[in-house]
């Protein structure tokens, strides 16, 4: 079993790990220097929706979505609802492995084939997922500590809080609020998916009452980290440059050097970054296999093994398509995806839960 605190670490760390690669908000660069506002919007919306999931998890202690969706919606409905979420986790997990391998290759190791990075990452994730939520919970304590230190240290280096830069953060809204909301969609989606892992991990959490709080805090804290990084990237690189960069954070880190000690911060950051992403991928893979396992009625370790084997090829086959990767995190794709999860999974389960509760109450 994992404690609410470990749940918090796991969720927050997974999201930070993901955002370190993507900094999704800057991708939808229409918002220009107001991108940071969309982070706040995204975090708020993601917390609201994920709280719904956490609430459901709290009300069904000892069960994951895979189980209680079956109870609430019947076998077929439950399987579909669970399947959508589990598949989303799995696909995102594969995408992320591809993405991180791709970025490392394009930035640092042009001659290394993609599979040489993707497969070890997936293998490590599979190992961690097979060790179970307990292990992940305890590992998250390590990683979160390390990540917190790295983030604080890198912020200290990245950002000299010059008044000029802070003044530059005044909202401009040159094109109105539209672009800001559009930019917030990918971030919302990623935050939502991070938060909804609680539907799988809630089953293993002690002190059910604290689940929603842990989930919300995790999204809030990781949202804060995202916010600070987005502000940094936008102000230091300029909005256009940040939008142009494949990974704004690496571009940012590469523009900073600690004279006489470390010339390239991005090379250090990439280590932290691989750590975060590997953990994130582990959490996604594990959540997916727990959901599938509970829905089908199989040991989640076996499901993990199957998912790992299934993922080997898609993860490593011809990693060259950073453009596709970027499109996958664009506003329309993530928006539709988020709606599918909300309408396909959360809404029916929640409605069914309300109906059941009313019946039970009356």
């Amino acid at each position, binding site marked *: 079993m994992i404690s609410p605190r470990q749940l918090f670490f796991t969720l927050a760390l997974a999201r930070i790990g993901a955002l370190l690669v993507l900094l999704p908000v800057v991708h939808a660069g229409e918002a220009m220097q107001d991108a940071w506002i969309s982070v706040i919007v995204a975090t708020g919306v993601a917390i609201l929706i994920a709280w719904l999931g956490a609430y459901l998890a709290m009300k069904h202690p000892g069960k994951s979505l895979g189980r209680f969706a079956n109870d609430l919606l019947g076998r077929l409905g439950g399987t579909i609802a669970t399947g959508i979420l589990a598949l989303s986790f799995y696909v995102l997990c594969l995408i992320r492995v591809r993405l991180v391998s791709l970025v490392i290759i394009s930035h*640092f190791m042009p001659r290394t084939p993609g599979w040489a990075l993707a497969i070890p990452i997936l293998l490590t994730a599979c190992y961690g997922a097979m060790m179970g939520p307990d292990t992940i919970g305890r590992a998250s304590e390590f990683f979160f500590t390390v990540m917190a230190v790295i983030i604080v240290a890198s912020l200290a280096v990245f950002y000299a809080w010059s008044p000029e830069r802070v003044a530059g953060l005044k909202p401009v809204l040159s094109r109105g609020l539209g672009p800001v909301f559009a930019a917030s969609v990918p971030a919302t989606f990623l935050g939502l998916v991070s938060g909804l892992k609680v539907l799988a991990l809630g089953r293993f959490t002690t002190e059910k009452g604290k689940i929603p709080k842990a989930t919300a805090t995790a999204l809030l804290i990781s949202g804060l980290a995202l916010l600070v990084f987005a502000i940094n990237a936008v102000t230091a690189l300029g909005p256009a440059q940040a939008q142009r960069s494949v990974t704004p954070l690496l571009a940012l880190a*590469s523009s900073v050097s600690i004279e006489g000690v470390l010339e390239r911060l991005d090379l250090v950051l990439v280590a932290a970054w691989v750590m975060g992403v590997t953990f994130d991928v582990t959490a996604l893979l594990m959540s997916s296999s727990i959901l599938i396992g509970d829905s089908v009625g199989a040991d989640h370790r076996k499901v993990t093994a199957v998912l790992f084997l299934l993922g080997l090829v898609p993860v490593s086959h011809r990693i060259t398509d950073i453009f596709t990767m970027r499109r996958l995190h664009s506003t329309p794709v993530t928006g539709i995806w988020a709606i599918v999860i909300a309408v396909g999974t959360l809404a029916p389960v929640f409605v069914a839960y309300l109906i059941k509760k009313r019946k039970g109450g009356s």
Partner: protein
Amino acid sequence: MRRTGFVALIIFLALGFSGCWDRIEIEDVAIVGAMGIDKGQGDNVVVSLEITNPGALAIGTHAATSQSPVVSIVTRDEASTIRAAITNAQRRTPRRIVTGLIGTVVFGQSLAREGIGQYIDYLVRNARVRSSAVLATCDSGAGLLQRPFLSPLPSRTLAGLSESAPASGMTMTATITEFAAKLSEPGIEPITLHTVGRKTKDVQVKRQGEEVKQTDPAVMLEEPIDVDITLDGELPADSPVLSPYRESSSGEFVPGITIDIGIAAYRDDKMVGLLDGVEARGYLWATGKLEEGTVEVPDPGGSGKTIALSIIRSSASIKPVLDEEVVRMDVELHVDLETREGPLDTDMTNETLLQALEDSIDALILHEARATLNRVQKELKSDIYGFGNRVYRANPKLWAQLEPRWNDEVFPNLEVRLQVSSRVRAPGAAYGLSAR
């Protein structure tokens, strides 16, 4: 069992990766310390790379193992793109050329005036080049890579220069990131450090006892170790060593050992002009970027001598005033100074004297800032101050209207109100001797 299986699998996979694709032995690497980019024939660029030979540089026993005493060589290659030129250089280099440690990128002026967008793109797109590398504009990019000064390597000279030159208060450096950010942001134009290789009289370089005349720009191979520089005869009256702040001669390839600095102003990716010495300081006043430097004003006490003060810090607040159609900038400058040098009998604690001193500093700063502003507005027509960006932030709709004619019409005629308030913070370490 499962766990051992995992470990075995990991090791097996790892052994399978026998290729070690991107691993490279450090001894097989040609480290490029600085890069010069000049205009070649037609649309070509000439890329100069300073390649260091670590074996000859190392201290201790290992210097002996090196095959060649050459500390660094400079390659020059002409091609239509930087990448192709580097590839050309690779053909003649027995080690893999690595661009990851480039600390300074020098653009030749004639190329800079035609536009360096594509080359900036090379630097930004190539993740191996560090974005914290300093950009410089020079009469000739290759020229600067030829002569080391107080350091065995030209690249070290340049790196040291870009680090310490802002202490003069006459220039500021811009990294690749900063340049690219300004290039892409609305209403602000980029600048770079400008370096000028000054032509001196032919210098005689004593190299291991043998005298070599060094003015030949085509010299590719340098052996600057143990260089004993002796100037030929007396220092000439116009030697740049003594009078550094002079107009530069542009366009011409000038090798030389002295280096002069200023700021190159760009409009988009094209260099439009050079702010030299005091002009550059005028720009730095108005942007509040001045952290060091010296101000000289006549003694308000009337001794006819000059008082020198050092700049401690400066700040500038730029406020756009947007009426219906009229746009105006209010710039307030605050400068803190400390007295460094003056006539013996000037009492720096005297309030009226201090007031007078501050007034004359205000006047000087105002004059310098205004002069530069006038030149930038009327002559260069490039908004390196970022006034447009302030308008954009304050009123994006208005900016959208103004943007197409900003640099050509609005900015040159923009009313800028300058207000200076300087404060002489301390008399230095002594009150000054009182008059007898």
